[in-house]
């Protein structure tokens, strides 16, 4: 790959920048507008129940905004990343072998959270912009990897007290962490997911039917070049040209019916069904066609004692178009020693569509723990191990390991200091593919100013 073939890493601090928007596929702007319009409609819909909204939020911080409270915040984060980017061993020779280089990365993350809490209607919107600045302090030239990220998450629940509830949610993100695990190189992901659920609770509300539907799109923009030294790319997981990963752009739709029956106030047996399908907007020639899945699960969820909460689900995924047909399950136990602490241990096996393969089967073991002590100090420890088996296409296994721990301390109600350490590792049968084989150590210090 020559210099001319490369696509400059983003330098515009504005979300995507004008040039960035031009490079995006036409669907991308539609998704942006759809998300914005949906959020606007939802906010407007909340105007009516102003009188019924609880005034409890009035005692909290935040700016009173209509029926809710608006909480602006600013995160300043300094992060050391031992695997910030690949750079030539010999900086003077771009064609030389690549090695992982560390860097100090600054995050400037302004955002806001808008909450409307009520017994019959609730609404929440959290949105932020994040400028990721590679300082160049440890690796010369890394500033070219600086980029703009953003995220938003909206949810609204209407008529919660009635026999028919209506829930809507939307998640939007733009970052370098794609939602599809199959992609074999670093990209900028533009993702949006819309969720609709209509819980129906006839009679005494112990029995609940939850028809639901989800629609997601993900567009990939070029972020990383793919020099020869980056190694082989698993078949179908890399675009024909690294400068145009849009061949993996996809839309994913799913829907189904869940049934919950609370045989105790805090414990329910459940049945879940969903059908998941995917299609690529403009697939490359010879690309692996996407599979689709019908998942059926049954089990129970809830409290078995006042201190122990469990999720036990087991079922079968029926794969179509080459997707895996296999058993799926989730076994999770949570210990709740007090109101502000929880320790969760679980094992999960699930199947999802994936780029470069008809499907990816994930076997995960995880531990999540959090506690909040002396009213100001929070501690968390998270661990996860994923064994991912790709079917038809890539046909290999990847392993992901991560551990994340650290404290958070509320110095004042408006000022929170957080720190932590994260270790993550990914290995693949495609050992020669650098983007799929890396270890990363991260340490961070985060200052959060909020109102």
């Amino acid at each position: 790959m020559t210099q001319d073939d490369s696509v400059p890493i983003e330098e515009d601090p504005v979300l995507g920048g004008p040039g960035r928007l031009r490079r995006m596929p036409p669907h991308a702007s539609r998704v942006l507008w759809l998300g914005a319009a949906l959020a606007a409609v939802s906010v407007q819909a909340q105007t009516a129940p102003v009188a019924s909204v609880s005034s409890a939020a009035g005692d909290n911080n935040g700016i009173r905004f209509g029926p809710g409270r608006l909480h602006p915040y600013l995160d300043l984060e300094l992060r050391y990343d031992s695997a910030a980017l690949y750079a030539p061993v010999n900086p003077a020779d771009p064609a030389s072998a690549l090695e992982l280089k560390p860097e100090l990365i600054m995050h400037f993350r302004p955002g806001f959270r808008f909450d409307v809490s009520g017994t019959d209607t609730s609404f929440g919107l959290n949105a932020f912009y994040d400028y990721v600045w590679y300082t160049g302090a440890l690796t010369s030239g890394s500033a070219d990897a600086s980029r703009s990220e953003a995220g938003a998450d909206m949810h609204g629940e209407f008529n919660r007290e009635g026999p028919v509830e209506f829930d809507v949610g939307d998640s939007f993100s733009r970052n370098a962490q794609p939602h599809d695990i199959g992609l074999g190189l670093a990209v900028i992901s533009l993702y949006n997911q819309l969720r609709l659920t209509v819980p129906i609770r006839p009679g005494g509300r112990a029995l609940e039917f939850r028809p639901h539907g989800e629609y997601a799109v993900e567009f990939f923009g070029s972020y990383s070049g793919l020099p020869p030294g980056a190694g082989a790319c698993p078949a179908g997981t890399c675009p024909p040209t690294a400068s145009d990963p849009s061949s993996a752009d996809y839309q994913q739709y799913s829907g189904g019916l869940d049934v919950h029956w609370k045989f105790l106030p805090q414990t329910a047996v459940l049945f879940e069904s969903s059908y998941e399908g995917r299609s690529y907007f403009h697939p490359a020639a010879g690309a692996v066609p996407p599979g689709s899945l019908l998942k059926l699960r049954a089990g129970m969820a809830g409290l078995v004692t006042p201190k122990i909460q469990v999720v036990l689900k087991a079922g079968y995924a029926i794969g179509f178009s080459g997707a895996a047909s296999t058993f799926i399950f989730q076994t999770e136990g949570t210990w709740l020693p007090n109101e502000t602490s929880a320790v969760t241990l679980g094992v999960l096996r699930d199947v999802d569509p994936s780029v470069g393969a008809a499907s990816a089967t994930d076997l995960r073991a995880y531990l999540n723990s959090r506690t909040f002590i002396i009213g100001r100090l929070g501690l968390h420890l998270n661990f996860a191990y994923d064994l991912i088996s790709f079917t038809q296409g890539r046909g290999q296994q990847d392993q992901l390991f991560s551990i994340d721990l650290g404290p958070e301390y509320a110095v004042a109600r408006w000022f929170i200091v957080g720190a932590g350490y994260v270790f993550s590792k990914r290995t693949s049968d495609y050992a020669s593919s650098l983007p799929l084989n890396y270890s990363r150590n991260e340490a961070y210090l985060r200052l959060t100013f909020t109102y």
Partner: protein
Amino acid sequence: MRASFQLGLLTALTLLGAAPARAQEPVKAPKPNSTQLERASDVPDPEKIRRSNAAVSRMRSVLTEVLGRLEDARATKDVVKLNCVNEKLTQVKGLLRISEQSDVALQEAVGRKDVTAAEHEYSKVSIARNKVEQLRNEAEQCIGQLAFRTDENLTVEVEVPSGLPTEDPTNPKSAAPPTSSPPPASPIL
């Protein structure tokens, strides 16, 4: 003839009210003032008229009270209490109607100097007044549906364990697929 019919009706209403009154276990109603009946002949005619008017007024006020209790029972949609109060109200209305007629008849008898008729009408009003007071007490003791199904002294204490999760534990969030952020590499670096 008419006077004997009214006296029979009064007796019937009195007996009718006695049975449900026992079923509700009312407080012991005062017995009809036999002394007052026996001594009706000793009461001067003008005093008979005055006492009769006062008794009718009192019975009207009792009717208003019982009507109020009926409205309360209807507002709370308490069928048991509504039926109980309505039964008392029906009897009060009948007794009041008889008493009003006897009050008029008493005044006519006094005007005619008919001592026997005057004493008879005066006795009817006196009996009706006592009976209405008894019905008023019974109406006060009409108990509601909830109290009927449980003991009035029953208290229910619900203990909710502390530290329960605030989110619905029967509806856990679905596990998200794993994500990864491959390090970027660019030939321009």
